[in-house]
């Protein structure tokens, strides 16, 4: 938990089929409890497969349904490229720096 109640979650490693299935329920639990303004640190994610995108899309939808917002920050170049190519950046705000991501969340 951060100041002002925003919740921070950090993801690591590859968001491929195996890893995503492993984290699915704890990620989901983290999104459905506490502050629905979620700061998602993806700086340590080095690979994003389709299923990783799905995790983010459904996550964003879940918190939006709770009146919150999911924002991402710190994407590595290849992950940033995937997020941009697929248009995910049109629906989930993505920032380079945590500070900008937090500012966005505080607007809610």
């Amino acid at each position, binding site marked *: 938990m951060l100041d002002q109640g925003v919740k921070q979650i950090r993801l690591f490693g590859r968001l491929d089929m195996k890893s995503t299935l492993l984290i699915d329920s704890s990620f989901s639990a983290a999104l459905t409890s506490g502050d629905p303004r979620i700061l998602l640190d993806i700086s340590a994610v080095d690979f994003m497969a*389709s299923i990783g995108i799905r995790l983010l*899309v459904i996550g964003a939808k879940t918190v939006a349904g709770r009146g919150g917002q999911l924002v991402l920050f710190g994407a590595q170049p290849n992950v940033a490229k995937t997020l941009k190519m697929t248009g995910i950046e*049109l629906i989930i705000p993505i920032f380079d720096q945590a500070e900008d991501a937090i500012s966005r969340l505080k607007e809610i």
Partner: protein
Amino acid sequence: MPIDFEDAANEIRHIKISGRLDVLGSGEIDAKFAALAATEKRHLVVDLTAVSFLASIGIRSIISNAKAQQQRGGKMVLFVGENLAVAKTLEMTGIDTLVPMFKDISAAEKAVFE
């Protein structure tokens, strides 16, 4: 024709896309897709049954146009018919949870009014 449309009597605009929705394919149809989706009509059914390949950039086109319609108070749904490859891509990426996807055209036409 990689993109075509038909305005039905029931106020639905059907947009049909064929071929590959990859960088080249999306480049060819993007402007027209956006223009067709920017219609004052509020009910869009996008027919992807004849799409042979849906790449990331195709997903982006879909998201972008669906979002534009939503901001206008409209609704866009996807009709995939028996196109399992496209259906799978949309399911794998979770895009089907954002832009409803249907195998049956009548279900699609009903959903677009919800």
